[in-house]
């Protein structure tokens, strides 16, 4: 078995301006997803919007700077993740297809690296 991180990307601005009922419906979708794939799920969380993010960068002098905001400013932002266990990529992709997402949203599937 291998582990995969499913990274959920969505349009934050659209989500923020959506009616409250949309957010509630999305939450219900996630509860359904979590029930359906309970056996495979190893963890997961929703993230606060990128407006709350703080980024630390290492400078050339060995020091670091702290800046307000996300590492990369993109329209589609990382909004949450699931950690799943799957036999292979095909199984992980099948689970990822079920992850609830906004129209135009995306789920990136990344294998977890194992050090041996």
């Amino acid at each position: 078995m291998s582990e995969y991180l499913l990274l959920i990307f969505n349009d934050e601005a659209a989500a923020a301006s959506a009616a409250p009922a949309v957010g509630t419906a999305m939450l219900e979708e996630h509860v359904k997803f979590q029930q359906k794939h309970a056996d495979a799920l190893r963890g997961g969380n929703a993230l606060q919007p990128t407006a709350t993010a703080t980024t630390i960068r290492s400078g050339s002098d060995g020091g670091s700077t702290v800046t307000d905001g996300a590492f990369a400013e993109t329209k589609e932002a990382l909004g949450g993740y699931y950690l799943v266990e799957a036999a292979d990529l095909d199984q992980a992709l099948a689970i990822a297809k079920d992850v609830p997402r906004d129209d135009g949203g995306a789920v990136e599937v990344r294998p977890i690296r194992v050090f041996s």
Partner: protein
Amino acid sequence: MEGAGADPSVVAAVADAHRGEWAFVLAATVRVTADLDLAEECAQHAYAQALTNWGAAGIPDRPGAWLTTVARRQAIDLLRREATFQRALPLLIEPEPVPTDEGSPVVDDRLRLIFTCCHPALSVDAQVALTLRLLCGLSTSEVARSFLVSEPTMAARITRAKKKIASAHIPYRTPTARELPERTASVLHVVHLVFTTGHTAPAGAELVRHDLVRRALDLARMLRVLLPDDPEVIGLLALIILTGARDPGRLAEDGRLVLLSDQDRTRWNRAAISEGVDLARQALLGRPPSRFALMAAIAAVHDEAPTWDDTDWAQIVSLYDALVRIWPSPVVALNRAVAVGLAEGPAVGLSALDALSDEPQLAGYPYLASSRADFLRRMGSVEEARVAYGEALALTDNLVERDFLQGRLRELDG
């Protein structure tokens, strides 16, 4: 491959076995190595052994089985000798099904290899490269030449793809029945791409890259053996055979492109046409008819027409109508518009073509401009035809096609 001093009949037999059995030998060896690179190394070793052994011992009755035995033995030896081959990232190999009394179908390892190479999690470029490399046994430099990229670029592409297969755990297995249609479509797309790239090379001095066309045909025949009941597979095989059957008429003696309308049809390969038409009929039995079955049927109508003028254009238009419904691509719409013009006259065709002029996908496509030019020429609009030929010329880098378009321009001047 080293062949110095070897008996020519042995060299020929090894070359035959390389073309015909490479995928079989490699796929069976992957089962032992759980590693694509090591399996390739062992398969290459087996072919080298064949060159030195077959002369004295005679060419075996079943070269594929002989080569597989040698390759697998080499793999086992290497794995025993070197603990380093206990790879950190072995391929996830689907166990060989235990023969049960239910008579579970025997799955050829080649099928696992095909579905691994053409996995949709790999880029299409990588799928094509892996397919030519692992299933057809082409060297990296041959694959690079086929796609007009440098050898280091192609080597990097292949290495990256193999690395992803291992680290993302793309399994070495056949898809489940539910996944099969989508996964087969991805395999057929790759084979079709190899064929179209070979049939009209996008750039270069040759119109047809016969090596790629032949590889595509080999792959399609292999798929037909491995997935015998899939109408889409039969359709693609039929399409490749029926299109290839016209190749002897496509080039004039001096290497110039001859349009379908002007080809000497006595030069077409009749045996291939009859095989292809048979297959196209079988493919059309699938319901609803698949993309490749319809494309094969269109090719069959052309192949069976005694002359250009006697072509059943109404039939071709109706096949394109069906094709546009299931495969609404701008290129298909373009071909349909051309057929409409041939069925109903150049003015009708021109307006069908002009309806497609805003299609962004056709913006860089030389055939839209050259088809417009052709209808304009036939309507006697010389000036507009000249402009359209010029546009087409600006869009193609294939020297044979460029030569053809320049010839048309000269005719307009004359």
